């Protein structure tokens, strides 16, 4: 796509997302749109490690859980203001990611994926069983919304929360775009293409891998924190492996290694199940089949297919 048309498309997408709450009449769709925007943050993080660095991490949901629980607990136990806990939650997640990433990144490729998945299982088991901390299956209730009653905007209003999440998602996407254009981002992409070569020219690849892993965890932690304050209730049950797989699916569907990809993927992953109202087991089969077929026939996702179509149209002219 040419430079100019690309930015026109981006501007149109942003305008559409800003206008969305005014267009949507059904409250439920507004709720789904908020979830989709939260998933944009999640998927952008997943894309940094999976799409750009080439390491499939399956611990996204676990880190989302850590972010969600830590923001809730800091609010409850230390009486910290909500804004502060939302900012602190990704930092707490980053600490866990550092501890998890260091041993995980000692293995490559598939085995990295498996080790991160083991971490997701561990986080899940601990969140479910450490009831004195997380209330276990009962879940934590009464997580406050940001800001107080005295402010002009009321975050209890869904529309306001939508714009709040929109701003955060837009910032997260911009940050990801800046990051992949930076020298660090280029190194991450080089690691994806040929890690040995990166090592051979004297770059400590592990530092960049760890950085990408921790940043992606911070995105997940942020998404979790925003989710927790939106729902006012969290049950650790949702932070299982299935959610991490959804994040991977979002990146693949949208277009891995692209900035618009995760945005599209996030909306697909949140809205698709609503249109395909099957029971859980059938949904699993369908999602799995989608993942297999997409990887075989459309490995570059929706963004890749659009780019190909566009290039095809232009060359015909």
């Amino acid at each position, binding site marked *: 796509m040419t430079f100019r048309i690309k930015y026109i498309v981006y501007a149109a997408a942003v305008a559409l997302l800003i206008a969305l709450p005014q267009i949507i009449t059904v409250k439920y769709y507004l709720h789904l749109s908020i979830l989709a925007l939260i998933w944009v943050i999640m998927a952008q993080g997943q894309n940094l490690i*999976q799409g750009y660095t*080439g390491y*499939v991490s399956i611990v996204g949901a676990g880190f989302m859980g850590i972010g969600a629980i830590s923001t809730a607990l800091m609010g409850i136990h230390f009486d910290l203001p909500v804004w502060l806990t939302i900012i602190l939650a990704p930092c707490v997640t980053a600490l866990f990611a550092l501890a998890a990433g*260091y*041993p*995980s990144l*000692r*293995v490559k*490729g*598939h*085995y990295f*994926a*498996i*080790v991160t*998945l*083991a*971490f997701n*299982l*561990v986080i899940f*088991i*601990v969140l479910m*069983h450490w009831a004195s901390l997380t209330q276990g299956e009962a879940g934590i209730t009464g997580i406050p919304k940001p800001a107080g009653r005295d402010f002009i905007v009321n975050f209890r209003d869904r529309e306001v929360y939508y714009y709040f999440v929109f701003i955060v998602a837009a910032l997260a996407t911009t940050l990801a775009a800046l990051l992949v254009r930076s020298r660090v981002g280029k190194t991450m992409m080089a690691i994806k293409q040929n890690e040995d070569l990166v090592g051979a020219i004297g770059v400590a690849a592990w530092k960049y891998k760890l950085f990408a892993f921790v940043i992606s965890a911070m995105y997940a932690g942020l998404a979790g924190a925003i989710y927790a304050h939106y729902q006012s209730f969290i049950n650790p049950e949702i932070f299982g*492996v299935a959610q991490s*797989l959804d994040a*991977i699916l979002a990146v*693949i569907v949208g277009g891995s290694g692209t900035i618009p990809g995760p945005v599209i993927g996030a909306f697909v992953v949140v809205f698709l199940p609503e249109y395909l109202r099957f029971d*859980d*087991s*059938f*949904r*699993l*089969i*369908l*999602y*799995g*089949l*989608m*993942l*297999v077929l997409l*990887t*075989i026939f459309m*490995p570059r996702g929706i963004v890749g297919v659009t780019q190909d179509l566009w290039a095809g149209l232009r060359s015909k002219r």
Partner: protein
Amino acid sequence: MIEFFQQIINGLAIGGIYVLIALGLTTVFGILGIAHFAHGSVSMFGGYLTFVLVSVQGFPLLLAILVAIVVGLGLGVLIELLAYRPVRKASHINAFIVALGLTMMVEGINLELFGHEQVVIPTNMSHVFNIGGVTIPELRLYAIIAAVGLIIAMTIFVAKTKTGQAIRAVAENRDAAILMGVNVNTIPLVVFAISTALGVCAGVRVGSLLAIAPGQGEGLVVIGFAALILGGLGSIPGAVVGGMVLGVTEALAAGYISSAYKDVIAFAVMILVLLVRPEGLLGKAR
């Protein structure tokens, strides 16, 4: 002390399951370089199938296991042909994502066909051996013996037979194997068939010793991979050692610490080994 030995015996019985899962994974990984994540769910399919054959269709246990193994062989061939072959030339990430998709599909199919209830394959072996205060149920003993038999059979197959030789040749150097006249298109089929059949055996063991429940396949495959990482990637002895270490650790953890956290402790062992010896206990230094 008797308690300790009892836990060790329990650990060996559970470890046998992990070894069988890890064996299937290690052959696929060592030879084709694919992390066959759907292996656990496919194995559970085998276990469910045996359960249905025995308790609904009234097959005798051994016949049911045999039928399930044959189905497993076919299933392995199908999985290779339809799912992994199309992405063989693409990057490794693609094969792994296909594996994740397959896992979701097989888990969904298991739920559709066999429901949400947990099932136990009925066996009428209730005799319990007692050796110096340590009790071994008949079933566990046979399970341990069967696992040992399968490990030996697998080792002999890979080391001695012509097909085994061809498999090793492909694993060693694919291009050279082609030049030597090895049909590299059938080898992956054989590997997947054997691996899936081993998985079915593991599924039957899970079904008769423990119980099969939805989602268990995913948990098992992660432990199977943990066993591989622990023992050393792509080697049969590594898979055996890794599986047994995890099984015994888990049993001891469940007996002395907490059964809720037994998986956490097994993974902690894996992560510790990774920190000290990234190539695994029996792996070659890289």
